[in-house]
Structure formats: structure tokens, C-alpha cells
């Protein structure tokens, strides 16, 4: 499917610019051109498809579904899946959290949503397909959803209600029935320009991170010797997973920037599981997110939340390394 991009990159670098295929610069530039074009196409496609899905399944509808249906324990799983298909914006996480809890959805189920929402997002999915292929993408998405399901369920067992901020507890006390959604119905045709525009906006928004990420990746591809990291961070040492994850938690990086870099780490010998765990910790948990959540949770609750998610990311890293 992407042969033509490779042909184009070969032609541009080796023929037009006349940089040899056997030089470091040549391979690095070729990799950069090929990856940038491929990723941008995938990014637009995936974001566009997610946009269509979201036009039909807005988060309000998903919340109603979780609230009204009896799901016999499956609500954690559904909340986690919904978190995966809802586009994530860190500035929405607090209103979402309050809205869910206010709408009568248990705290644990809300956490399932909150964990998966940044962990599995459309930008990361597109980058993963482009860099690691479909199988690794499915494993990443599947384990992200599983992580949210189990993490939320466990957090729900902790009776965390009393660790919410005072004003949130007050809202909980006065659960009000909420009005329906006040929005005009639109046909698919009417929505299409809006969805296309939205997809373009997202691609534009992450463009700079994609280019920087791929540039760093390309430079490393050309200059770092084969199996360089494998010697130091190979699968043999079990501690590489927890170390990678603990380093990544406070960091915040856009999935668009981080995936091209970890792809090189993998190509040069780091086990894929360690790399996926590192990425999940980077995009899923961060200091800026903790700061936002401080408005609705006590430090103790944030600590428990981060602790449980970190633990599960580490466990899933071990699991990937065994499976892949």
C-alpha cells in the first residue's frame, strides 16, 4: 500500500538530490521523507474515521448508555472502550470527570474512562499502524482497553469518594437529573465538512511534533549502530520496564512526537514491550494532568490513581515482552 511513497523517497533522495543510498545522510533523509508522508496520510485517515464515529456516538450518548443500561460488571469494559474512541483533550478531562460522576456513574467506571482516554487515542493509533504495523497496534489498543477496565475496577474497590474535593462531594450529594442534549440534528452530508475540518485541524496541530519526532528518529536511524540499545536495554534485564515507565510518568509528550523515536529504539534492539510501556506512561500520565485533576481530587486520590495506572503499565510491559 505504501510502496509508492518508498519509490518517491528513493527517487527524491537518491536521484534528484543525488545522495548515495549507502551514506548515513542518504538513509536518514530517505527514512524521514518516507515516514513523514506515510504518517501524515494515516493520521488524516484515522482521525477522519474517528470523527465520523464521534459524530454518531458523542460522549453524552455514551454517558447515558453507561447510566441507563444494566451491564453486570461489563460497565468498566464499556467505559474503557468509550474512553478509547473519544478524542482526548486534557482540558476536557475535568469536566468529563465531574459530568460522569454527577450523572450517577460510579467512580470506578469513571476512572476506567479517564485512564483509557489519553492512553488510546487516534493520533497514537495512526502512528502505531505506520511505525509498527497492524498486529502491534491491535495489541497496544487491546492492552490499553484492558488496562483501563482493570484499573478502574480496582480503583472502584478503594472507596475513593471521600478523597474527592469538597465541592465535588457537594455535587454528588445533590445529584440532579440532567436535561437532554440541546443540539440540532444534522444529516451526515451536513456534518461532513465539519468532520473534515476537524481532522485537518488535528493533523495541523500535531504536524510539528510529527516532523520533529520523525527527524530525531531519522537521525538516530542513520547514525546509531544496529543493536546499540539492545546491548544496554535488551530484554534480558527485567528492570528496564519499570525504569522506563517511571521515567516516563512525569514527562509529557505528544504521541505524535514520541512514537517515531521509540520506533528507532525498537529497531536498534529495545524490546517492543518496554517501548510500548514507555509510550503509554508518557501519554497516559503526566504532571500537567495531575495539576488539572487537583481541582477535583485530593493529592491522595491522584496519588492512588497514578500509582495503580503506573503499576499496570509496568505489568503490561512485562506481558508484551513475553508475548511479542
Amino acid at each position, binding site marked *: 500500500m505504501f510502496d509508492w511513497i518508498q519509490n518517491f523517497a528513493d527517487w527524491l533522495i537518491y536521484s534528484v538530490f543525488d545522495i548515495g543510498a549507502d551514506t548515513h545522510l542518504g538513509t536518514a533523509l530517505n527514512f524521514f521523507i518516507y515516514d513523514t508522508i506515510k504518517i501524515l496520510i494515516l493520521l488524516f485517515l484515522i482521525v477522519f474515521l474517528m470523527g465520523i464515529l464521534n459524530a454518531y456516538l458523542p460522549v453524552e450518548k455514551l*454517558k447515558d448508555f453507561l447510566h441507563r443500561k444494566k451491564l453486570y460488571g461489563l460497565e468498566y469494559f464499556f467505559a474503557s472502550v468509550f474512553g478509547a474512541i473519544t478524542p482526548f*483533550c*486534557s*482540558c*476536557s478531562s475535568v*469536566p468529563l470527570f*465531574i*459530568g460522569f460522576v*454527577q450523572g450517577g456513574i460510579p467512580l470506578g467506571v469513571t476512572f476506567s474512562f479517564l485512564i483509557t482516554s489519553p492512553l488510546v487515542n487516534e493520533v497514537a493509533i495512526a502512528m502505531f499502524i505506520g511505525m509498527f504495523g497492524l498486529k502491534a497496534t491491535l495489541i497496544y489498543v487491546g492492552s490499553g482497553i484492558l488496562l483501563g477496565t482493570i484499573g478502574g475496577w480496582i480503583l472502584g474497590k478503594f472507596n475513593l469518594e471521600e478523597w474527592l474535593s469538597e465541592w465535588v462531594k457537594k455535587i454528588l450529594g445533590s445529584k440532579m437529573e440532567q436535561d437532554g442534549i440541546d443540539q440540532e440534528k444534522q444529516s451526515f452530508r451536513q456534518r461532513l465538512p465539519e468532520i473534515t475540518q476537524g481532522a485537518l485541524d488535528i493533523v495541523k496541530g500535531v504536524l510539528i511534533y510529527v516532523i520533529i519526532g520523525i527527524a530525531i528518529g531519522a537521525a538516530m536511524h542513520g547514525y546509531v549502530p544496529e543493536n546499540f540499545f539492545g546491548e544496554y536495554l535488551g530484554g534480558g534485564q527485567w528492570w528496564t520496564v519499570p525504569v522506563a515507565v517511571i521515567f516516563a510518568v512525569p514527562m509529557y509528550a505528544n504521541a505524535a512526537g514520541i512514537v517515531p523515536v521509540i520506533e528507532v529504539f525498537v529497531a536498534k534492539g529495545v524490546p517492543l514491550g518496554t517501548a510500548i510501556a514507555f509510550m503509554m506512561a508518557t501519554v497516559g500520565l503526566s504532571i500537567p494532568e495531575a495539576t488539572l485533576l487537583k481541582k*477535583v481530587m485530593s493529592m491522595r486520590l491522584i496519588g492512588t490513581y497514578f500509582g495503580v495506572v503506573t503499576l499496570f503499565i509496568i505489568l503490561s510491559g512485562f506481558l508484551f515482552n513475553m508475548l511479542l
Partner: protein
Amino acid sequence: MTQIKVLGPGCPKCKTTYNNVLEALKQTNAEAEVEKVEDIEQMMKYNVLTTPVLMINEKIKIKGRVAQVNEIIDLLKN
């Protein structure tokens, strides 16, 4: 007078929406009372889940994404 509110906890998307509202008003020479709602407790009264939200005369018009200038102009006409 038309009342416009932009709801959002101060993220970049919310700021863009606010600026787009000002731009739309400027282009149409319309007058309106524009308010930025950044306080979460205030925001939750409107029962929103995703931000930014654009409200005109206490009605939610666009939520969860940045409202474009020409969209706002269209909404203000009605």
C-alpha cells in the same frame, strides 16, 4: 443584547475559540456581551462534558471543538 459565553478551563483550544468570537464580532460589526467562563464549578452548571463550549444567549451551540470564525458569524445571524 446578544450574550456570548466561552466555557473552558483555559486551554489553548478555549483561547482560540474566544479569539474567534472576538474576530467574528469585529468582522460583522456586531455588538455582544462576551464572557469567558474558566471556573469549573460555574461551567458544570451548564452540564457540559467536553470543552471548549460556545454559548449564545444561554444556549449551547458548539461543544468539544474550536468554533471557526465563519461558523460563529453564521450562528450570530440566526
